[in-house]
Structure formats: C-alpha cells, structure tokens
C-alpha cells in the first residue's frame, strides 16, 4: 500500500462489510429457497420443513443488511447510487419483484396453514423467487465490475439500459451468485439438521453446489477475460491477486474436505471464509473505483461532515446491533 486509507475508503469498506453480511446471511436464506425448489427423495417434506425452520426467525434481520448497503451507498456516495439506479433500472426492478415475492410467499405459506394445496403453491412461489433473485443480484454486481455502468457517451435505450448488464460475463456472475448462495445454504443446513439422513441429504447437495460454484467461477473468469477486461486485470495483475486467490482456493478446498469428512462446523466456517474472500476480491478489483471506469471512491464521496457523522452512526449502530445479532443467533442457531 502506497497511501493510507482515507475516510471515503473506510466507508466504502463498511459497505462491503454490509454486503458481505448480506451474502453470508441473506444469501443463505435465498439458497434455502433453491433447495426448497430442488427438494426430492423420500425426505422431501422434511427437507422443506428444515429449511423453513432455519429461515423463519432470522430472514427479516438478514434481509436488513441489503438495506444497510443501500442507505450507506446513497448517503456516502450519492452520485454512484444515482448512476447504478439509472443504468441498472431493469435488473434492479426485477430483483425487487423477486425480493417482494420471496418474503411475502414465505410468510404466506407459513400462515396459510390447514390448506396444503395453497401452501404448496406459495412454497413454489417462494422457491422460484429465491432462485431468480440471486441471479439478478449477481447480474448487477457483474455489470458494476465490468465497467459498463456509466452512461457518458452512450445513446439509445439498448446501449444505456440493457447492454451494460445483458452480457455473458454478467450472466456468469449471476449464475455464480446463485451457486454460492445454494452452496452456503446447503453447508449451513448440514449443521442445522437434527438427524443423520437429512444431514447426508444436504452434504450431498453442498458437494454438488461446490462443483457448480467451481464451474460458474471458471466460466465467469473466462467471460471476464473477454468481456470485462477491467475486472480480469484486477483479478490477475494486482499484487494482492495471487495471495487472495490462494486463500480463496484454500478455503474452498477446506470446505469440501470438511464436508467430505463430515466435519460440518468446520465446513460452515470454511465456506463462509471462501464466499467472503470472493466478495472482497470483487471489491478490491474495483478499487479505487466505485463505479468504474469513471467514478472513483474519492470522487463520488459525500462531504467530509456527512462521512464523519455516518461513521459515528455506524459505530453506535454496531455497538447495539452486534450483541443483538449474537443473541438472535444464539437462541435459534446451533453452534
């Protein structure tokens, strides 16, 4: 590092922390919906019940990480938020519809008891929305990384509002996000499952998802070399790139090894580390930009006074929230 971290850098980092929280917690809730969709075999209903039980008390709290990402983004980097929301209007709107349907359908299913046909239909809506939403999130994240978001110099509806995100690279990023969320969910569910048969179901699913992650990551990287040179350069040429890839790879191998050895607690830890490293790798590939290739973190930052106040608010919020979150997870989750 040639220069010390500035205040905008710190806040951009905090946004990545919140995004990381959303991916690890909210992402796994979406992944749960994927496994609801793919529930099969003699224990199909018990798989679904386990997923619902695991998500029920926590999904709303997990979802708030996304809201934190958005409010920090528009408070600390208003031009970046405006640019993203303009260019990515279509995938973001589709993602919101997915978020609304996922949350509503999950709750409707839970409270529509006594009518199993209707419950089944809500379950289907929940599962499909859970599977589509992560793809759209990944598409948006991919579009940002590929440097296609800024509108300057573009004309025409397709060039401004469609071309930046409808690319092989972005679709690859969408598939990778879906695979990662499904992977996280399956690994977490091996810990949550109370009996060996269900544990085995989700162990197999976790291993399958790990393979899907590998394929999607390879495909996305290949597409990046062709379609997103900025990301590709960030992910290959930077001094931190190699250690990061080594660490990510080590975490992935550790997660698969732990799953293989049925050490589920360890697998959960390694999978979380693997996914977090991917999030931070993406963020570092963007640095020092927030909307590459035009808006830098420093250039898009709100005035110092706003950033200082937000830092205090985040510090105060963290002080109150972390004990609360620990309390929530201690009540409902097995360690």
């Amino acid at each position: 590092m040639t220069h010390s971290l500035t205040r905008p850098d710190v806040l951009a980092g905090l946004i990545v922390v919140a995004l990381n929280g959303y991916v690890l917690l909210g992402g796994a809730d979406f992944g749960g919906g994927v496994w609801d969709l793919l529930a099969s075999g003699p224990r199909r209903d018990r798989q679904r019940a386990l997923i619902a039980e695991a998500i029920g008390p926590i999904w709303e709290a997990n979802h708030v990480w996304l809201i934190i990402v958005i409010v920090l983004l528009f408070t600390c980097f208003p031009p970046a938020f405006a640019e993203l929301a303009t260019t990515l209007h279509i995938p973001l709107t589709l993602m919101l519809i997915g978020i609304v349907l996922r949350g509503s359908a999950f709750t409707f299913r839970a409270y529509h008891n006594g009518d199993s046909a209707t419950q089944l239909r809500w379950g289907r809506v929940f599962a499909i929305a859970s599977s589509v939403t992560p793809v759209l999130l990944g598409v948006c994240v991919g579009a940002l990384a590929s440097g296609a978001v800024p509108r300057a110099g573009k004309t025409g509806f397709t060039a401004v509002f469609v071309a930046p995100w409808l690319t092989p690279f972005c679709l690859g990023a969408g598939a990778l996000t879906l695979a990662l969320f499904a992977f996280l969910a399956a690994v977490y569910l091996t810990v949550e499952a109370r009996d060996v048969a269900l544990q085995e179901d989700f162990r197999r699913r976790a291993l399958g998802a790990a393979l899907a992650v590998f394929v999607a990551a390879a495909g996305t990287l290949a597409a990046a070399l062709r379609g997103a040179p900025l990301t590709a350069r960030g992910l290959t040429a930077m001094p931190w790139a190699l250690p990061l890839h080594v660490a990510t790879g080590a975490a992935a191998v550790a997660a698969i090894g732990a799953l293989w050895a049925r050490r589920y607690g360890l697998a959960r830890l390694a999978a979380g580390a693997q996914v977090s490293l991917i999030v931070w790798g993406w963020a570092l590939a963007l640095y020092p930009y927030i909307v590459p290739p035009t808006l830098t973190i420093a250039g898009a930052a709100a005035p110092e006074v706003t950033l200082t106040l937000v830092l205090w608010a985040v510090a105060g919020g963290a002080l109150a929230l972390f004990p609360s979150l620990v309390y929530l997870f201690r009540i409902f989750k097995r360690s």
Partner: protein
Amino acid sequence: MTDLLAARLQMAVSLAFHIVFAVVGIGMPVLMILAERRWHRTGDRLFLELAHRWARGTAILFAVGAVSGTVLSFELGLLWPRFMERAGAIIGMPFSLEGFAFFTEAIFLGVYLYGWDRVSPRAHLAAGGLVAVSGGLSGIFVVIANAWMNAPTGFDLVDGRPVNIDPIAAMLNPAAFAQTLHMTLAAYAATGFIVAGIHALHLLPDPRNAFHRRALAVALLVGAPAALVQPLSGDLCGRVVARRQPAKLAAMEGQFRTEVGAPLRIGGWPDERAGETRYAIEIPKGLSLLAFHDPGATVKGLDAFPRRDWPPVAVVHVAFQVMVGLGSVMALVGAWALALMACGRDLTTHRWLLRALVVAAPMGFLCIEAGWTVTEVGRQPWVIYEVLRTADAVTPMPGLVVPFTIFTLLYCFLGLIVVWLLYRQVLKSPAAAAEAMPVGARSREGV
C-alpha cells in the same frame, strides 16, 4: 402517460401500500406487549391468547412491510436519481439511522415471534418492548427525511448545487418535530382504532365474550388517547405549513386569493380555472385564526404564486378535508370511549359506542392515506421544496408505465392475500374464548 406521471404514480402506489404495513409495525407491538404484560400481571390466559393472535397478524404484516420498504429505498434511486444525487449527502443520515433502528426491530421481532418457548417470559416481553421502541424510531427517522423535503435546511445553494452541508441541521428542520409527532400519533390512533373496531364488531352480537372485551380495552388504551390529542399536533403541522409552504396551505384550504382575515372552508370543490372554491361552508376569519392564531392575519392565496408553482389544488383540498373530517370523528369517538372508561362503565353495554367503533375502524388508515396525499401532492411541483422540481429529478429511463403497472398489480394481489390471511388468522373468534377465565386468577401458569 408521461414517464414523469408514471414515476409519480409508482411512487404514490408504493408509499400508499407500504405506509399501511409501516403503521401496523409501529402500533401493533405496543398492543402485543400491553396484552402480554397483563397476562404476566394477572395470569389471565386470555391476554396471552390475545398477544399470540396479534403476534400472528403482525408477523404477516411485518414481512410485507419489510419487503415493500426495501422497494421504496431502491425506488428513491430507480425513479428519482437526480434527487438522491443531490439530497443523499444531506438527508441520508436519518435513512442510515432508520436502517439501524429497523435492524433492531427485525432482530427482536424474530425473537418475539419465534421465541415464545425459547426465552424467559421477561426476556420475551423485553424483546417486544424493543420492537415497539425501534419501530417507533424507524418511523420517526423516515418522517424526518420527508419533513426536510418540505422544509429543506442544512445547506447553501450555490449555482444550483448544495454546499456547506450540515446533516444535523437538515435533521432538525422546522417541519421535523410537527410531522414526526403527527405521524407517530397517527400510527397509534389508526392501529388502535382498527383493532378496536374489529373486536367491537365481534362484541355486538356477543357482548359477554371475554376475549374480545379484553382486546377492546387494550386497543382503546392505545388508540383513543392518540386520536384525542391528534388535532393538537395537526394544528402544529398546519402552522408550520402556513409559515414554510404557503402555496401548500392555500391548496389545502382552497384559498385562491390573498386575503386579510381569510375564512376557513369546510368541504367544497376548488375550481382551478375559475380560481374559486365552490360549495364550501365558510367560517369567517377561521383560517387566519387557525393558521396564524390571529383573526386579522393575511393568508397568501394561490394568486401570490406563479401558476407553474401551484400544486394540484382539488386533490390537496379534498384530501385535507377527508383527513380533518375523519380525524375529528375519531377524536370524538375516542373521547366518548375514554369518558365511559374513566367512569368505570362497561363499554359493551353501550351498543351505539360499539357501532361507532366499527364505523371508525378504517378511518385512521384513510386519514393517513389522505394526510400523506396532502403532504406529498401539496409539495408539488417540487421534490425538494423550492430547490428541485420533481420533473428535474426523474430518471431518464423510458417506459416507466411498465414498472408502474407491474408494481400496482403486484401490490393489489398481495393486499388481497394479506386481507384474506388476516381474516383467517386473526379476525375469527377463538373457539374457546367465550368461556372466560376467572379474571382475578393471579397465579401465572405454564412456561
């Protein structure tokens, strides 16, 4: 339909939908913890059943509120990127604080809804208390941001760009106190009244039903005092509008001409072309008295403003009449109920009060929708009052009629489902409720 109109309608639909769930998220936790506390105190299991039942309703409504609120936070940028680009640094602060308050709310709602037999009764009640407090705070923070759009402070405008930004001064804007007080009271009044009305409906044919009697008492405890003092906070809001947004006040009152000793118009239909409000009952000097506490005060009419700075007069005036009219009815019904309770009377023997409560049940929500129409439509054509026009804030994205249609259909559909589920889960009488538990039984059971 122009893109600007589609964007405004999509925002209106999203806000009108979300506000119902947001209000319930502020009001219901208070009802739940009051019922649960009574169960702790008296050991009367009907109060526990009540808390359970209200919690089920709250769970459904909170989920829809959480996701529709997420939609709104994105829509600020999806529909109004030029607004957020300028306002984000000034007014993002209360949104950030709201984010943390909402986080607290979601965490402890999870504990409350799913933790009945996992945490101690005291911890459970405390979790409910935290949901109530953080729910109230969430609402206050969001309304502070809205108040800033009406009375923007905390920056200087140089060449159309905000400089010298002071987010604290922006939060302490002149409209913030009146608006947050008015909205918080509205949330308690609306929730209390709709719950009271539902249980009053059950008590009309079955006045001895112990379950509904307890529910009615708790709901009125929250709703009636709030409805009773609400006109005072409304007066405070009105006077802030009179000072800060005279064009909005003129539209609310159908005041086309600037006038010394302006009359208060009740009802009536403002005709923008003719420049007069017809068929209204006029109380001489009433508006000057109410808005400035001086019967001789001059009230600016719409004629003091260029035509392009007028809000849509008829919509604002009618919405304001609806809010004030229904709000007054609620205050009267609330006073009636409180007077009977203060005298120790049995409310269920006063059938006309029960009928009035049934009729007043939806009024709080109608008032809230009408009141937000006054605030938002009355601010037009500005998104930031006298700083940024709504037309200059809209996204360049074409075809906005498509997302507007999709969200409208989606929300209509979800609204129907929610009503149906609440009917099944909450509104039907519990089977065993007619057999009242002995009220004096003080032994706490179970857990």
